[in-house]
């Protein structure tokens, strides 16, 4: 009885986490498409996408459990939280060193 209730709770938690992951990935995509320059796009690429991937991977870890290889999912999660900002930093820094001026209000470049 209580085991069944626990499983139901877990199932719905997975659903919620997956939907959150989808939502933040949607935000990330919208940002990458709408924002005006490479720096502001790097914001959503590094942050919203990291959070979206984080929620998605948390949902996966919860689904498969420890025995099914969920620790690999957790490992992936940590890895993405470590590497995504680093990669975004490298890209933004490359843009900065190329001399790309950040967009400010009034700039008509889009």
């Amino acid at each position: 009885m209580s085991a069944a209730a626990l499983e139901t709770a877990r199932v719905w938690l997975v659903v919620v986490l997956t939907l959150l992951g989808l939502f933040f990935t949607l935000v990330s995509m919208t940002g990458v498409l709408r924002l005006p320059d490479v720096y502001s796009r790097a914001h959503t690429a590094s942050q919203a996408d990291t959070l979206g991937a984080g929620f998605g991977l948390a949902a996966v870890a919860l689904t498969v459990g420890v025995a099914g290889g969920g620790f690999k999912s957790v490992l992936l999660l940590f890895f993405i939280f470590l590497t995504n900002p680093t990669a975004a930093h490298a890209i933004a820094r490359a843009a900065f060193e190329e001399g790309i001026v950040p967009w400010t209000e009034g700039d008509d470049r889009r």
Partner: protein
Amino acid sequence: MADADSPSDGGDGSTDSTASTEPATGDAAGEPPTAGAVIVPVEPTSTLRSTIAHVADAAATGGAPAIHLVEIASWRNGDPESDERAAAAERVLERAAAWTAADLDDSEAPGAAAVEVVTAVTGAGDYLFGADDYVRVLAEYAEANDADRVVLDPEYTPVGNTTLLQPLEFALSNTSLSVETAPVDRPTRRERFRTEASAVRLVALFGLSLGFYFLLGDPTYWFDAVTGVATAAVVSITLSRVSLDSNPAIPRTPMRIARGLVYIPVLLFEIFKANVVVARVILDPRLPIEPTMNRMRVIVGSGLPLMTLANSITLTPGTLTVRARDSDLYVHSLLPWAREGLFDGSLERWTRFVYYGRRSARLPTPRERDDVAILQGDDATEELPIAAVDGGEPGSVSGSEPSDDLTDADEVTDR
């Protein structure tokens, strides 16, 4: 680095060998007719002994009044372990001073008896990040002690694992000091590796990579066990000097990990909270963003703490670390709200908490310290250093820029 070949434009111009990396042995030794004292930055390297022999010889023949053996502190007074590191530095200096005195005694040159040997530890009051900071400390010391020459040990690397010699030489060539790298034979790569690799690092990295391998594989299966040990051995032998820049220590490393575990949920909550705000802005049809580039000088120490802080800033939505130059972080912010949050410095305090403990976390905010600048937009307080960021030019990062450079950069963008 091409900068090392550019002619030195500072100082008296008497030594043109300043910026070259491999000074010819002959002319460097007999050259200096200087009147000022000589400064030797000291670190326990494998070439320190021969550097000192060279300096003592040159000072005796050249008539320098004093040799200053200076250790530039890579720690800061008040930090945990600063006492131990200061004591270790003192020991190195004592040994170096003894060598210098012995070399001067042995010297045949008439001036040898008049040369005074001075030792000093300097720079411990401040966090030093890169070549520019080191040169500033050296220049202040030279000013105070009437020195006009710096002799560098070719293996000199004060930060630990990063090679600082070339940027250091370049930055020094822009001061009035004359610079020379001691023409001593470097030991071969192999020897240097053997002297610098530490057993603690090797074991720590071996354990770490073996644990990772077993996490993915199956430690009870003999094949995985054998390949795991072999792989971990290769990784730890080749990379222990690269991946760890200080020895893991017993009370410190576990404490840092424990405090890091406290920090992770806090960071996750911050990330989530700020992500919601930014998501609302991005999904808003009017897209009400006001991006600016900002500069913030942070006090966390170099290496891993700086990386932690920079990555935390990047992960927190609305702010993106674009460039870390010494202790200056160039941060792009999407919203004024995110910028203000950044200048409040809570991430900086958390990073200090993780690496140095609760006591070190109390610190005025960057805004109160006046360590912040906005580089774009209506509130701009400094100009954007977009053309001065090539990494070769010391000093004037935040200096003014001719506007031509900005238009050039715009053209680059439109390609």
